[in-house]
């Protein structure tokens, strides 16, 4: 029995030591793989995986010494964290902007500056400086991730519905400089009928409307202004779209049939969403004319939300040098052209975004410019405890307003109180 106990003790000891080494992992010398296999983790389904494989095909043909293994796990964020914590991360991974800040803060990303400096393909001048700055260390200015693509929220609209109602299209209004929030609401009201809504807006994407009313709600990484008249006005505006004006469905109606499906079924005249929906609608071959226009303007300037994603090389990646070659290609002009041509995403290389390749993508007459008109805006400043505050505290409390459980004033006051506490945590 004693021997058994001793044996069990030994097993525990070995396990404990091996797991404790997780903490120490990455501090020692990294083992470099001689071969050219790069593990590349991304989100999305089989379709997106095939798209990326298509982007990589010319690169792999030019570099027979390399192979790229693409992994698309379910629950991407959880899996990536677990792999990083376990010291076995992929060589390349997608990092949403808030996640980038988190991983960089923890020292889990490779400094890419030395690669960028030595590269003949990478050209900082061909990127929006704000985008590169977002993915750089705030103190040293060194790059830790290269922007992959970006998405701005725009208004998709059903041309046929506007034509039938005898209304000028949002693009026509935009070109005349008349695409204001008042006009936006006015056409939404006219187009709301028994069968269709004038607008489809997912309440969970409340962030899209906030910059218009309260552009300075994020004062610093440790100060948010939520119980302000401007922020409350924004929340009331979103809520009134249903409660007062009836132009947007209720949250329950949207849960039942998603806004994306409602739009494709012709049950909504306008729909606010990002670039990724363009590809979905293109593939679905919608049975009506549709186009996109920037969000309504104020003083000649559109306010929207910018989602950015970057490529990063985790600090413990086995093959960082080869990983850089893949990133360098994908974010280079050659690699960005197929991205632009497919219309899949907004290219990060300025020369490609402004080129015919992107502007002519999707189909003739499609207003691709709507997506790049306002990309000068850098993504929102990432404040402390971002995910918990942004998605869980704010999202959940605001949802109470949109479902009639609380007033905007009450919710914003409560959010402010909670957020002030969480920012100190």
């Amino acid at each position, binding site marked *: 029995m004693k021997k058994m106990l001793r044996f069990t003790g030994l*097993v525990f000891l070995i396990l404990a030591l091996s797991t404790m080494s997780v*903490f120490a992992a*990455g501090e020692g010398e990294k083992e470099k793989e001689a071969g050219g296999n790069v593990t590349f983790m991304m989100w999305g389904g089989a379709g997106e995986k095939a798209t990326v494989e298509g982007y990589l095909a010319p690169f792999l043909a030019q570099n027979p010494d390399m192979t790229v293994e693409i992994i698309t796990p379910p629950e991407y964020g959880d899996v990536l*964290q677990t792999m990083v914590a376990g010291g076995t991360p992929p060589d390349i991974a997608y990092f949403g902007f808030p996640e980038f800040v988190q991983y960089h803060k923890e020292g889990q990303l490779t400094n890419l500056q030395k690669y960028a400096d030595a590269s003949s393909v990478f050209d900082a001048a061909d990127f929006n400086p704000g985008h590169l700055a977002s993915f750089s260390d705030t103190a040293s200015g060194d790059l830790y991730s290269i922007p992959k693509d970006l998405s701005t929220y725009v208004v998709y609209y059903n041309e046929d519905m506007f034509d039938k109602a005898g209304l000028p299209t949002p693009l026509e209004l935009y070109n005349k400089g008349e695409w204001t929030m008042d006009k936006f609401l006015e056409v939404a009201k006219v187009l709301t009928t028994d069968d269709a809504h004038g607008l489809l807006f997912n309440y*969970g994407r409340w962030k899209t409307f906030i910059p218009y009313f309260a552009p300075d709600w994020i004062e610093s990484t440790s100060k948010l202004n939520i119980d302000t008249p401007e922020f409350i006005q924004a929340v009331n505006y979103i809520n009134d779209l249903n409660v007062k004006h009836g132009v947007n469905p209720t949250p329950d109606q949207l*849960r039942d049939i998603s806004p994306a499906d409602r739009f494709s079924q012709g049950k909504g005249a306008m729909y606010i969403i990002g670039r990724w929906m363009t590809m979905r609608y293109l593939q679905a071959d919608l049975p009506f004319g549709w186009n996109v226009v920037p969000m309504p303007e104020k003083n000649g300037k559109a306010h929207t939300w910018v989602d950015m994603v970057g490529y990063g090389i985790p600090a413990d990646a086995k093959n960082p040098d080869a990983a850089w070659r893949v990133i360098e290609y994908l974010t280079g002009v050659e690699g960005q052209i197929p991205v632009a041509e497919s219309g899949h995403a907004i290219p990060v290389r300025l020369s490609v975004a402004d080129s015919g390749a992107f502007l002519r993508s999707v189909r003739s007459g499609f207003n691709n410019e709507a997506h790049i008109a306002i990309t000068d805006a850098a993504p929102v400043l990432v404040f402390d405890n971002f*995910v918990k505050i942004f*998605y869980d505290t704010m*999202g*959940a409390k605001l949802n109470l307003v949109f479902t009639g459980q609380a007033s905007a004033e009450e919710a914003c006051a409560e959010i402010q109180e909670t957020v002030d506490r969480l920012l100190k945590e």
Partner: protein
Amino acid sequence: MGIRTRLIMASPRKRTEMMWGFIFVGPVILGILIFMGFPTLYGFFISTFKWTFIGKNPDFIGLGNYVRLVNDPDFLQAVKNTFVYVAGILVFSIPLSLLLAIMFNRKMPFGELLKIIYYLPVITMMVAVSMVWRWVLSTEYGILNYFLGFFGAENVPWLNDPRWAMPALIIMSVWKGVGFNMVLFIAGLKNISSMYYEAADIDGASPFRQFISITLPLLSPTTLFIALTTMMNSFQIFAQAKILFSGATEESSGAGPDNAANTIVLYLYNNAFKWGSAGYAAAQGVFLFIILIMITSIQMKLQKRWVHYDA
């Protein structure tokens, strides 16, 4: 007498048998040690660190995470919600499954078919069930509100109102789990010898009296088992809440309106994987572990008073 002594004393045949016994049990024991014993101990260890899960340098903070636990209103609400949920499940699921078991224990038309129907939710994936229930519980289009409408009820905002979120969760979980407990109760009922009922009949005991004085006491070991397993499973509620209440807001944590469906494990998961507080999450795991050990030992102590092992 130690294993070694017993092995020496046993006959060679016995010894071979014992050896094979250990070989067969070994992998399972090893599995339990590696995948359950070690993580449990390791959980205790990391609960003393401030660690972001992806961080390389955890800070040792001693009992800091435990101090934070008792001062965290969200955690305290999660604890309260979890207890309400467990109580709800115990109060509704056990009597309901006993009722069904008694019903199906007698011969009845389509009995076998109905048993299968009641058991089907048990073998259906929780994620799939939760997705379907999101629709069942929809305020305007949900089938539940549709039926309630026949009785003149107003539409109940099951998934949007903090007051209804927990009842919604309990209703769905009872529906999902009642078939499993029903099967256990049926097995328990089959084990009760008919001689007790025959004797009671001769003495003129009413069916209700027989149920109270024979069925319930002799079913008590099964009831104890069901109560314990149901309770432990209920304390670990996670997937139902996560799926049922996600989608309401972008990247929602699944905690329901105003955190009304936030439970200990869900909060633990969100802390560890979403909010970068792995050490704090581990402290919550330890808290849950202690609660479960405490409640189980209280139940085991109390069972002497009401559990009868003589069927």
